[in-house]
C-alpha cells in the first residue's frame, strides 16, 4: 500500500468513527417521540438556556480575548510566554477539574466576598456563564491570536504613517482585515460553550428548568435510562454543532481567499 492510499484510508477511518457514532443513535430514534421531546417545555427551556448562556459567555470571552490576543500577536513583553502557555490550561485540565476549581474559589474569602457583593454564582444561571467563560477564554484567545497573526503588522504601521492613532489603525485596518478569522473564532468559541458540560454541572448543578443546559439535559436523561429522549437531545446538539462548524469552515475558507 502506498503512502497516498494509507493516508486517505486513515482519513476515511477518522470520518467513519464519528459517522458511525452519529448513525448509531438512529437505532433508538423514534419520529413521534422526537417531536414530543423536542417541543416539551423542559427541552425548549434547555435549548433556550444553552443558546443564551453560550452567547453571553462567548461575548465575555471574546471581549477579553481580542485585546489579549492582540497583545500576544503584536508585542513582546515580559511574561508573554507564560501567558501564551497558560492559554492551554483549560485544555490540559479537564472541564470537571476546572469547575471544581471554580467551586473551590467561590468558597475562599475572596470568592465569598465576590458573591456577597455582586452575584450568586454557585447553582445559578450566572454560574453557567462563569463556567463557560472560564472554559472558553483560553481557546478564544488562542483562536483570535491565530486570526490576528495572519494580518501583517505592516498594514497598521502604514496606517499610522497616514496619521491614524494606534487605536484607529486597529479598528479601521486590523479588525476589518481579520474579520473573517475573528468571526470563525467566535463561532468555534460559541460551539465550545454550547457543548460545555463538566465545569457547568460542577458550578451550576443540574436543576431542571433552572440550570439544565442541553449537555446537562442529555446527562440527566441518560442517568434516568431515557435513551430515546437522550437521542433526541443529542440530535438537536449535533444539528446546531454541524451548522456552526460548517459556518466556521466556510468563513475560514473565505478568509484564505481574501
Amino acid at each position, binding site marked *: 500500500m502506498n503512502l497516498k492510499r494509507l493516508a486517505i484510508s486513515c482519513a476515511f477511518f477518522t470520518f467513519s468513527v464519528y459517522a458511525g457514532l452519529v448513525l448509531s443513535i438512529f437505532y433508538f430514534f423514534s419520529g413521534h417521540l422526537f417531536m414530543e421531546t423536542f417541543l416539551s417545555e423542559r427541552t425548549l427551556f434547555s435549548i433556550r438556556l444553552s443558546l443564551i448562556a453560550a452567547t453571553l459567555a462567548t461575548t465575555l470571552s471574546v471581549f477579553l480575548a481580542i485585546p489579549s490576543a492582540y497583545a500576544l500577536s503584536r508585542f513582546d513583553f515580559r511574561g508573554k510566554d507564560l501567558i501564551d502557555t497558560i492559554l492551554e490550561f483549560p485544555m490540559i485540565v479537564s472541564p470537571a477539574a476546572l469547575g471544581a476549581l471554580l467551586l473551590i474559589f467561590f468558597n475562599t474569602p475572596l470568592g465569598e466576598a465576590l458573591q456577597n457583593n455582586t452575584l450568586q454564582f454557585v447553582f445559578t444561571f450566572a454560574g453557567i456563564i462563569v463556567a463557560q467563560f472560564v472554559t472558553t477564554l483560553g481557546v478564544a484567545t488562542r483562536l483570535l491570536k491565530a486570526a490576528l497573526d495572519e494580518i*501583517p503588522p505592516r498594514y497598521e504601521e*502604514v496606517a499610522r*504613517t497616514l496619521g491614524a492613532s494606534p487605536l484607529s489603525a486597529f479598528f479601521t485596518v486590523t479588525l476589518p*482585515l481579520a474579520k473573517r478569522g475573528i468571526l470563525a473564532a467566535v463561532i468555534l468559541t460559541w460551539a465550545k460553550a454550547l457543548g460545555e458540560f463538566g465545569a457547568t454541572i460542577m458550578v451550576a448543578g443540574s436543576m431542571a428548568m433552572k440550570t439544565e443546559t442541553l449537555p446537562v439535559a442529555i446527562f440527566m436523561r441518560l442517568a434516568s435510562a431515557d435513551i430515546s429522549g437522550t437521542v433526541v437531545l443529542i440530535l438537536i446538539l449535533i444539528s446546531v454543532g454541524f451548522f456552526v462548524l460548517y459556518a466556521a469552515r466556510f468563513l475560514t475558507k473565505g478568509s484564505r481567499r*481574501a
Partner: protein
Amino acid sequence: MLELERLTIQAGTFSVTNIDLTIQPGCCHVLVGPTGCGKTTLLEAIVGIRRPHSGVIRLEGRDITDLPIERRGIAYLPQDLALFPHLSVEGNIFYGIKQQKGLNEARRNFVLQLTQELGISHLLNRGIGNLSGGERQRVALVRALAPGSRYLLLDEPFSALHEAIRRDIWQLILELKRQLGLTIVMISHDLKEAFFLGDEISVMVEGKLLQTDKKEVLYERPKSAAVAAFLGLKNLFPARILYVQDQEVIITLQDMPQKLILFFKQTRDMSELAPNSPVLIGIRSEHVMLLRPGMANKHQKNLITGVIEDVFFQGKDYTAIFRPDGSFITIQIDVPGYAASKLSLKRGDSATICMCPERLFLLSE
C-alpha cells in the same frame, strides 16, 4: 532638512551603528547596499516603526526621535506597498485625509487632481485586487502623499516591477519631487535606479554608512574597496607606491612589471603616500581604452600591451577580458558596440590598452 546624528539601532543581534546623515530639502537621497546591511532598519527608525537605541533624528530642526509614527508627518511606501485590501482605491487614497480632523475640501481636490495627473482617476471605485503592478504603485504613491507630507520614504517599492514600467515610475517620482517639493529618502538595491533617481547616494555595508556623496562623485571616486566592490567595479588591483613626483604618483602593480602613473589629485582621502606603502588601484571598465592596432601614441601614459582573453556580447555593448603581457591579472574593458565592430575583437588577439592617469584612482588597502 532631515538629520540623523550618531543614530544606533539594535535589531536582534544585528545593529546599525553611528549613522550621521544630513538630507537637504528637495534632495533625493538613495541608500544602497547588499541585502541585510540595515537599510530597511534605518528607514524604519526614521519612520518611527523602530525605536533607536541611541542618537537623534531631526526633521526641520525638530527632534522627532521619540515621536509616535502618526505625529512625524513622514510619508512611507514599504516594499510590499501594504495597500489595504479591504478598501477600494478611493478608500485607500483618502484614508490619511479621513484620519485628519474633518475632510479638508481643498486637500480632497488636490488629491483628486493628483489621481488625474497619475492616470488613476478612473480606478477610484476598483478593488485593490483588480489593479496591475504599475497601478498599485501609483495608488500607493497618491495614498502616501495625500495627507500632505513633504518627506517621502521609499523602501524598494519598485523592485517587483517590469523594467519598462519601472522607468515610467522613476520619471513620475522625479516629476512629483519637482512639483511638490518633496524630500525623498529611498532604498534601492538597483544601482541603475539609484543613479537615475538619486541626487546623493549612501553606500551601507554591515550596518555602517561607508560613503555618502553626490552620485557623480560616488561613481567616479569610491572611497573604499567595499564601496567599489558594491558599485560593481571590476578592475581593482593591489599595488605599491613607488614614489611621488610633482603632481604624479608612480605605482607598480603586483604581478605586472609595468609602472603606472596617476595624478596626485586622484588620491583623495589618502593621508599618506609613502613610498612602498600598499594601496589598491582602480579604474572603471568603461574608462579603459582599447586602442586600434597602430593607434598607440608615445605621448599617451599607461599604455599596456597584452592579449584579449575573452569577449562577451552584452546586448548593446561588449565586454573584453584583457591580460597584460607577463602578468597574472586580468582587466575588464567595456567596449561600445560600434567600437567593437570597428576593432573586430576576437579572442586571442594582441592588443594595447590605455589607462588614462586621470581615470585611475587609489584606495587605502
